[in-house]
């Protein structure tokens, strides 16, 4: 496809970041070799091996938890809250100073477009540290009782879709409330967490306060099951979340889970159509659809279905797919071969069940993991693509006739993480959002985040909240 105004390649330079050929584990303030095997992490846009990282063994996890316990008891727990805040402010500033480095590395390891890692992931991660740095010496005023006490050692397991941001969501509140952490980044995206370990060193964070143990499922299991962990925080699939809940059941450990979603994005006939179309695109194609709160079910009022769909298809036709490091790329690579298989499978099931698949004309790179933006129409609420989380750039379009029907269909899911409502009528926004069983409901926007706003789900989307005043409760003693 050639057009009059062909944008020349505008790649962000990758020379700003120094990727080491191999990484150990970050335990007790130092990079150390693991006792287990190693694994390779690849650039999903090219399948090039970026680095080799350690697979943390049970022994490594134990060493990290012991370091975290020591740091909690001797240094971080007893520290004046204002001083803890200073460290967090320092980390936040370092993230801003090294923002380009983090953004490039995130795009390399994850496959997301640099525009998103640069303008969303990294600034949001820094914002989370700034926000929580401010809380460190003001916890008395959080409405969680006088002088709330930390829990101790937090074992945190994070996903591959927003590696750096999820790290910030986990580490910032834990540290601000006086806990120490052992964090396991996702198997396919460990690199920004390891760069963050360097930032901890640079900030002179006392050893053991933050420990990063890379690895896969077994490493995560060891961490979650470790008897000296007081708190488990997990973001990821509902399947793994269930396993973790079973493993933690019957112990004294506190648990928060942020799991899958199948969010409804409801477009009423009086919606601002152009902005609603932008919101639909942002809802499902942001981060290649690798978003737990993605608006993967479009519920559009039948009277504007054709108009909205035509606008949506035109708009999808303008999305730019390709090199994640190109500053003009809108849609990058699928994070892993495994995830690509899952997206393909569910899309094929969608077709087999009778839904119509639509994809824009686009050329995908020869190497790497790619899936074009996809819209399914003629979708029925019984189809698997309307019920299962695809976790990819795949939108299912359903229709409704009345507000009651919209609410009933939106809530007809085993998940309940997020939802969106599009209408120019303020009273309708209030009436509908009140009845939607989802942790976050966006009105005339989608996928907006802020550290002050709690995030979390209903039903199989998990429990507990992250961010805001409510997010602090998950890391403090007492029944909140």
């Amino acid at each position, binding site marked *: 496809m050639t057009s009059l105004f062909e944008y020349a390649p505008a790649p962000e330079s990758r020379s700003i970041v120094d990727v080491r050929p191999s990484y150990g584990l970050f335990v007790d303030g130092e990079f150390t070799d693991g006792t287990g095997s190693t694994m390779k992490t690849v650039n999903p846009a090219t399948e090039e091996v970026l680095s080799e990282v350690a697979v943390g063994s049970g022994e490594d996890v134990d060493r990290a938890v012991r370091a975290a316990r020591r740091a909690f008891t001797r240094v971080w727990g007893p520290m004046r809250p204002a001083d803890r805040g200073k460290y967090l402010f320092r980390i936040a500033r370092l993230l801003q100073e090294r923002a380009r480095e983090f953004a490039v590395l995130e795009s390399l390891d994850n496959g997301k477009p640099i525009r998103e890692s640069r303008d969303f992931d990294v600034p949001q991660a820094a914002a989370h540290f700034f926000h929580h740095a401010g809380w460190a010496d003001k916890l008395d005023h959080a409405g969680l009782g006088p002088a709330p006490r930390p829990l101790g050692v937090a074992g945190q397991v994070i996903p591959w879709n927003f590696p750096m941001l999820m790290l910030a969501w986990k580490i910032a509140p834990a540290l601000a409330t006086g806990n120490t952490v052992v964090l396991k980044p996702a198997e396919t995206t460990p690199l920004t967490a390891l760069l963050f370990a360097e930032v901890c060193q640079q900030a002179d964070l006392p050893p053991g306060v933050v420990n990063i143990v890379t690895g896969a499922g077994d490493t995560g299991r060891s961490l979650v099951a470790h008897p000296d962990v007081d708190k488990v925080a997990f973001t990821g699939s509902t399947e793994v979340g269930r396993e973790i809940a079973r493993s933690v059941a019957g112990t004294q450990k506190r648990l928060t889970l942020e799991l899958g979603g199948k969010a409804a994005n409801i477009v009423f006939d009086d919606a*601002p159509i152009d902005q609603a179309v932008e919101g639909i695109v942002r809802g499902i194609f942001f981060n290649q659809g690798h978003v737990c709160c993605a608006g993967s079910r479009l519920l559009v009022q039948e009277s504007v279905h054709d108009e909205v769909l035509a606008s949506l298809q035109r708009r999808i036709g303008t999305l730019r797919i390709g090199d994640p490091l190109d*500053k003009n790329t809108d849609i990058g690579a699928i994070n892993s071969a495994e995830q690509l298989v899952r997206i393909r499978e569910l899309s094929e099931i969608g077709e087999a069940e009778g839904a119509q698949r639509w994809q824009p004309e686009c050329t995908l790179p020869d190497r790497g993991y790619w899936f074009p933006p996809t819209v399914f129409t003629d979708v029925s609420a019984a189809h698997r693509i309307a019920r299962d989380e695809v976790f990819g750039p795949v939108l299912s379009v359903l229709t409704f006739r009345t507000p009651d029907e919209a609410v009933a269909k939106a809530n007809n899911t085993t998940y309940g993480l997020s939802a969106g409502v599009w209408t120019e009528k303020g009273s309708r926004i209030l009436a509908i959002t009140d009845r939607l069983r989802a942790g976050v409901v966006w009105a005339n926007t989608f996928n907006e985040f802020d550290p002050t706003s709690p995030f979390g789900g209903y039903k199989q989307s998990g429990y507990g909240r992250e961010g805001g005043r409510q997010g602090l409760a998950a890391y403090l003693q007492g029944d909140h």
Partner: protein
Amino acid sequence: MTHVLDPNALDGAGSQDTAPGTPPEPFADVTRSGDAFRAFLHGLPGVDQVGAEIRAKVLGTRSIKTTAKAWAIDTAISMVDLTTLEGADTPGKVRSLAAKARRPDPEDLTCPSVAAVCVYGDLADVAKRALEGTDVRVAAVATAFPSGRASRAVKLADVRDAVANGADEIDMVIDRGAFLAGRYLDVFDEIVAVKEACGPAHLKVILETGELVTYDNVRRASWLAMLAGGDFIKTSTGKISPASTLPVCLVMLEAVRDFRAATGRQVGLKPAGGIRTTKDAIKHLVLVNETAGADWLSPDWFRLGASSLLNDLLLQRQKLRTGHYSGPDHVSVD
């Protein structure tokens, strides 16, 4: 819908198949009464302010480099309506502007000329003579520019005078007072009358979006002007702040895009005022490209109303060719 529904629409710019004052199908009956017209304009989808501004901002982050930048700069130069609209304008000033318009960069003959020179109506003949033998058009502001506060007879006389002075294009202002008072049909009728008075001259309809304030108003006024037969819709006079902004352009580009999809008739867009740098100009081209589509990427359908912009485009053009900035003395002071 960026495809051309009616292949003749591009050639038929300015001409209308229907009788003057009758909007094109399928909207021919929406102006049958003031109430009907109001219902139609208020039935257009609303614009969410936050969403429109976010979209414009995201498109503003596009990175246009090397060959794309060279193309964009030359295209932007060819789209400039080089403007002087001062009380102190003289024939000498207009002649100097015309010389610059035909050959913006005397040191480089490959540099394209601009689209038009835009002046007050009484100086249109000076511009016309100075631009003889070139493709550069003469645009004149009329209808009691910039406020539009005069009787219709005076406004129409203003237009006829400018056309008689040789203006190829007329930039009119709408009656914002009537628009804000909800007298949409009055605004419509006036545009129709001005269009008739224009004769063969192209009509650009200035909405003065800085006085309409809301994006909903911008969308309604855009549709109103297109239905009345405007060949171009234009954001601003340049005399009111804020002048053109990217979100306003976005909303107007959506309007020209949707209007063509519905009627087959293509209308051009001219943002004016506040566009001073090459970066601003390129952001506008990106906005056009990704909103209305490449069909609008020509001086026939998109103009940039500006004065100081041209020198910055020329400096950037020289920089791209020679690899270094030449400095302000290498472009002419007007």
